[in-house]
């Protein structure tokens, strides 16, 4: 066996209940470098591993503020600084007329930041990832649930970790080559 080339140990479960339960136990057992895979979002699963998506809202807020400011000052710069047109003495900085474009730019930037920020925080696109080396992992996008303990976890020990995972009655266990 190639010991150094192991990415982690993966266990397969049948139901959302069992994966959430397993994730809780694993977290409680002191494993911290873990992850779980499911074919649809399960809120309790992220909670079980004590994970919170705190980065995304901040990114969206920054995007929205940037978009709003650039939208407004684009118009301000054009109509007040670069090419002012005096129409019957009306104010150049006619801000109520600038609201619509400011609003649209806020939404545009916030939306783009939400999507690309989410992808970037998730490290996507990622052309290669070791978990796909496990043949059964193809079912992670259909009807199976997987729990992985990464070999980088300080508590990781091939025999010990396998015994721990077996204790939770998974459908199968596989070592993930990296």
């Amino acid at each position, binding site marked *: 066996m190639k010991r150094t080339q192991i990415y982690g140990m993966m266990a397969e479960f049948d139901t*959302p*209940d069992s994966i*959430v*339960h397993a994730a*809780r136990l694993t977290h409680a057992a002191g494993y911290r470098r873990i*992850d779980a*895979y*499911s*074919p*649809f*979002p*399960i*809120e*309790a*699963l*992220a909670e079980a*591993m004590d*994970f919170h*998506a705190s*980065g*995304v*809202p901040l990114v*969206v807020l920054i995007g*929205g503020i940037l978009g709003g400011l650039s939208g407004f000052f*684009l118009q301000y710069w*054009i*109509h007040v600084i*670069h*090419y002012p047109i005096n129409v019957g003495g009306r104010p150049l900085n*006619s801000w109520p*007329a*600038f609201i*619509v*474009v400011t*609003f*649209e*730019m806020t*939404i*545009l930037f*916030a*939306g*783009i930041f*939400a*999507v690309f*920020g*989410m992808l970037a*925080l*998730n490290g*996507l*696109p*990622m*052309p290669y*990832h070791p978990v*796909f080396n496990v043949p059964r992992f*193809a*079912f*992670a*996008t*259909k*009807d199976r649930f997987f729990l992985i303990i990464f070999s980088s976890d300080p508590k990781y020990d091939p025999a010990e970790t396998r015994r721990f995972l077996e204790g939770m009655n998974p459908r199968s266990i596989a070592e993930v080559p990296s």
Partner: protein
Amino acid sequence: MDDRAQDVMNKQAPVIEPGYTFGTVTDKISSIVLTRPTSNGWFLGFGIAFLVTMGLLYAVGYLFVRGVGIWGVNIPVGWGFAIVNFVWWIGIGHAGTLISAILLLLRQSWRNSINRFAEAMTLFAVACAGMFPVLHLGRPWLAYWLFPYPNTMSVWPQFRSPLVWDVFAVSTYATISLLFWFIGLIPDLATLRDRSENRAAQIIYGMLAMGWRGSAQHWARYEMAYLLLAGLATPLVLSVHTVVSFDFAIGIVPGWHTTIFPPYFVAGAIYSGFAMVLMLAIPIRKFYGLEDFITDRHLNNSAKVMLATGLIVAYGYGIEAFMGWYSGNRTDAFLLWNRLHGPYAFFYYLLLTCNIAIPQVLWIKKVRTHPGWLFLISGVILMGMWLERFIIVVVSLHRDFLTSSWGMFYPTRWDWMTYIGTIGFFLACMFLFLRVLPMISIFEMRTLLPEAEVKAE
């Protein structure tokens, strides 16, 4: 369990028929794309739509050679079919965003089986809508002048004009709709990548899925981004048709210069959009055997939304007529008279019939759950909403303040060819979408299954 128990109590059709598992839901939807042979019906439908699209190409090609003079537009009616079709198409798109964003925020889980193709519908409808203002420019090759870019002429768009607002609103709407649609597709593209046995399909879906693996951390960020995007798309979709209505309401033409326009336009947009959703959903669920996923519940709910928005639209017509009388303004009063008795009166009565009278049968539950009737009524509503925009654009413009500048608008064959051509383009895009992408969101369907519930500890 609460929702399902409540459905039984209320004797409502379920959102998804019982007996499905994660596996069977996945197989049923992905098999349409991956394994089922392409039916002759698909080739026939796509073929016809494609031919009509070629008609559009011809009409547009001829327009580029000869200019907008081939259309019926002239002074006083300078806006004609191009703007009628623009408003009609962009309105149709609104239902997709309403279903995907607003119903998500309202936790209406029945939306999960229709949001994907409704969003696709939005995209294609916005693409059709976007063509018209550009074709109408007169010098369409200078369309990029609409955007503020640094140029040696030092010429900028006039940001105090609603037409420029519209450029920003529509292009933002198109971008956000595309992003929303694509981010919703990522997990399903991963499913197709893993289910596909064809090497080329694996590579293409694999690249599009960007290495999605369904990690719990990814899902948490994904759900957060999706929710925020829905929260952003909700005011956006309301703003888009509001800004479209500003194109009219900021002007002083009688019949345009009214404050009722924004809400009445938004309601009309959702009205026509749901009609289009039903016109697509009813044949799709029949031909692909998806009655278990798009159930009578969906038909019923969509029909209720149509009924409600239809009543708001009726209120809008009522207020327009009332203000024509109550304002005491002679041009406004004349506009009302002209609608009822002028040369286009027939179309105004047809509009009232299509948009107000006929849809009242939706009060009857039997009609709301009868696919055939719903399909017909949706067609009537789509026609009615097109007529509404025709009345707003043409009837208001053709007789305004000065009797000396009155005139008539008659569409030419090129007007019709361009309009029908965009319908062909829209349908051709829909056919391609049905063939290569999952038309129902697979991962969101999985969350609707009883087995997806995690019992609280």
